[in-house]
């Protein structure tokens, strides 16, 4: 039995064994354990934030929210937002709020547009603590709201993540 084990250890694994993966993952989890435990925001907190702005009755169209289905790393997730609007002096997008339901705090950023922008489109990079919904809420110059939601899966890496 011991001899057999020794033999096995000398073999070069053609595939990384389940044992190796479990051990590697264990090491990764130990690292993750060094991070503080934080309470995460939830849908209720996000809904409350949206309601406070007055966007709870928002129209569920008119926004393109560009996010990867699967984020390679939650530390840096590319997000693009574009709101349909002529961006004229009397009809434009005033503000776009971005929320992340599963983060410690749902606020991500608030973008203030003016008609001088010509188009209500922006790209940035955000942190997502886990797989969750990202929400864009747009406040138009006439006081109406538009809203869009996209789910992003945040992967837990092997060694890279």
């Amino acid at each position: 039995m011991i001899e057999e084990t020794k033999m096995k250890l000398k073999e070069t694994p053609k595939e990384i064994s389940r044992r190796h993966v479990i051990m590697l993952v264990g090491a990764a989890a130990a690292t993750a354990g060094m991070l503080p435990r934080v309470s995460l925001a939830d849908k209720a907190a996000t809904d409350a934030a949206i309601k406070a702005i007055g966007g709870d009755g928002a129209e569920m169209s008119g926004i393109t929210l560009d996010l990867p289905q699967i984020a390679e790393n939650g530390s840096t997730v590319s997000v693009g937002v574009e709101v349909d609007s002529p961006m004229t002096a009397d009809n434009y997008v005033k503000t776009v709020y971005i929320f992340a339901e599963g983060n410690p705090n749902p606020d991500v950023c608030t973008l203030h547009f003016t008609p001088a922008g010509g188009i209500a489109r922006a790209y940035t990079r955000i942190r997502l603590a886990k797989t969750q919904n990202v929400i864009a809420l747009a406040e138009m110059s006439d006081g109406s709201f538009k809203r869009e939601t996209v789910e992003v899966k945040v992967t837990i890496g092997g060694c890279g993540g």
Partner: protein
Amino acid sequence: MASAKPRVKVPASAAKGEIIEIKSLISHTMESGQRKDKEGKAIPRKIINKFIVTFNGKEFFSADWAPAISANPFLSFHMRAEESGTMGFTWIDDDGSKYTAEKNLKVT
């Protein structure tokens, strides 16, 4: 943390009425306030919380940032080119520091 100058891209020239894309990048750890150091002490929050863009002195775009913005913040946005002038960028840190950049645009 502002040892590196911000990087901003504004086209050198544009046709009147053209919508141009502007890209901005600045070096900052965007310390979220959620992390702890090796001794288990909370690392205090220190982020850039505000980004303002002006053209010929008039603000036309701004953003409020929460700790959920990634380190070394990137933001791209747009402007309709109407006249030649100077675009001004200001990033405001939690500690009150201001980082600035400027670019000229020629409208033809």
